[in-house]
């Protein structure tokens, strides 16, 4: 589904990615672990086009997405969350979800001005947004500004916006960090749902218990290279990885 070949990326003298080659299958839930500076977030940034690799290629199926702009990669079905919570905090929870839906009729200048056919689509999107928010137990907050939600709820909302994009590949940057146990359970359940829907999930995480619970596969990175790749029970039983890379 999503793969990369021989990815290299350096920031001045710091090597962030050094010949990374990975492939993620449809319906696979894959955790990327490693210490700070291992290159995990850089990998997500390169896969989503926010950082251009110095060398190597990224493929989505047979499409070469290496040189595509981030919005074009997103339109091809790769969605992501960010380590720092990114939401439009002044807008309502509902508007944040509505924003994330794929290009809408009303996003054309002409349609926005003429209003032709807008109301039908707007009503349909509101129904879909309500479903997404209900799934994440955010329905009662839908009219609140996103910035007024608790940290855990904002984290859920970032995942909700990811879901709303309708992407088949979801790249989540630390979805379990800083959330309360209830939210954590909800995120675990959500990722299970993604798997059932055959979506590919790649998530960067430091929370080893969460990785054990949801991942089908674990990739350990260090200094820009993949140092281990396999089943969670295999990778997470290696003491040198547990001690050094989490």
């Amino acid at each position, binding site marked *: 589904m999503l793969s990369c070949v021989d990815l290299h990326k350096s920031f001045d003298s710091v090597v962030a990615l050094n010949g990374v080659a990975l492939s993620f299958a449809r319906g696979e839930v894959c955790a990327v672990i490693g210490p700070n500076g291992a290159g995990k977030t850089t990998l997500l940034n390169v896969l989503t086009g926010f950082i251009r690799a110095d060398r190597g290629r990224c493929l989505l199926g047979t499409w070469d997405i290496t040189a595509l702009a981030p*919005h074009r990669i997103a339109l091809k079905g790769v969605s992501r969350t960010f380590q720092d919570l990114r939401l439009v905090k002044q807008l309502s929870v509902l508007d944040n979800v509505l*924003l994330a839906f794929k290009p809408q009729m009303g996003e054309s200048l002409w349609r926005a001005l003429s209003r032709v056919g807008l109301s039908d689509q707007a009503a349909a999107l509101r129904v879909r947004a309500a479903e997404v928010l209900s799934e994440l137990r955010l329905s009662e907050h839908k009219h609140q500004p996103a910035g007024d939600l608790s940290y855990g709820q904002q984290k859920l909302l970032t995942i909700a916006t990811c879901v709303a*994009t309708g992407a088949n590949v979801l790249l989540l940057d630390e979805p379990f960090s800083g959330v309360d146990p209830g939210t954590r359970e909800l995120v675990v359940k959500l990722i299970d749902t993604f798997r059932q829907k055959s979506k590919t999930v790649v998530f960067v995480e430091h929370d080893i218990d969460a990785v054990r619970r949801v991942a089908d596969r674990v990739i350990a990175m260090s200094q820009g290279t993949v140092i281990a790749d396999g089943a969670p029970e295999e990778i997470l039983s290696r003491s040198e990885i547990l001690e050094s890379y989490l």
Partner: protein
Amino acid sequence: MEYVIHILIVIVIYATLALSLDLIVGHTGILSVAHAGYFGIGAYVVAVLSTRLGIHSILTLTTAAGLGALASLAVSLPALRLREDYFVIATFGFQIIFSNVLNNWVPLTRGPLGIPGIPEFTLFGVRIASQGGLLCLAGFVALVALAIVYALLHSPFGRVLHGIREDEVLMESYGKNVLRFKILTFAVSAAIASTAGGVYAVYLAFIDPTSFTVMDSILMISMVIIGGAGSLLGPPLGAALLVLLPELMRFLGLPPSASANVRQIVYGLMLVVVIALRPTGLVGAYKVGR
């Protein structure tokens, strides 16, 4: 009464300008100091087409809007890819070039002499010559501008603009072509400003380069910031305040040589006070430059 209507017409024209500038400054988060340039393009298009070619009034105004939008591409296509502060510098460059063109392309603009004798506006054969008629014309253009801005902001297009204002990276990750949205919004804003420029030219019947300088751009930004960016009411309110202020100062009895300088000082003070005490402006929702 004539004086009051004159002030009202100027307020309405500047309110239209401030409203159009706020579309990019307050709603999209892009600061531009080229707005007086687009205002000037509209004024000169109407002046040149009506005095030299005798083209019909409505056609001159629509051409002004179209050329204003087209001219916006000269800035937005190359410069909107730049980081925010570099974009401001690029718009400053455009504004300076535009002022130089007005002063030096004498065969077309008559340079510093300006263009006199701009004909009265005619609508379906009816001459709009009275001040009341011109107030209606300016008011109609302002209402159309308001309707356009309102329709844009209350649509998915406007929601994306607010998203861009808050976080461009996030919008890219949602699949929004941020550059496209910015270019289109800049074009709409410039088209409205150019139309307002056309009305200004028709109203005064004479234009020269002194009304379309970088200082005028800064005045328009001040209107947006003082009134309140990111709201429909704020920019027109700011325009009204900054148009009325110098008129009120007339009653202070300052000598003519000092009044212009005092006016600039008062504008500056107002900006500083508003930014310090109420960063979102009098009725605004967005703090410019945060």
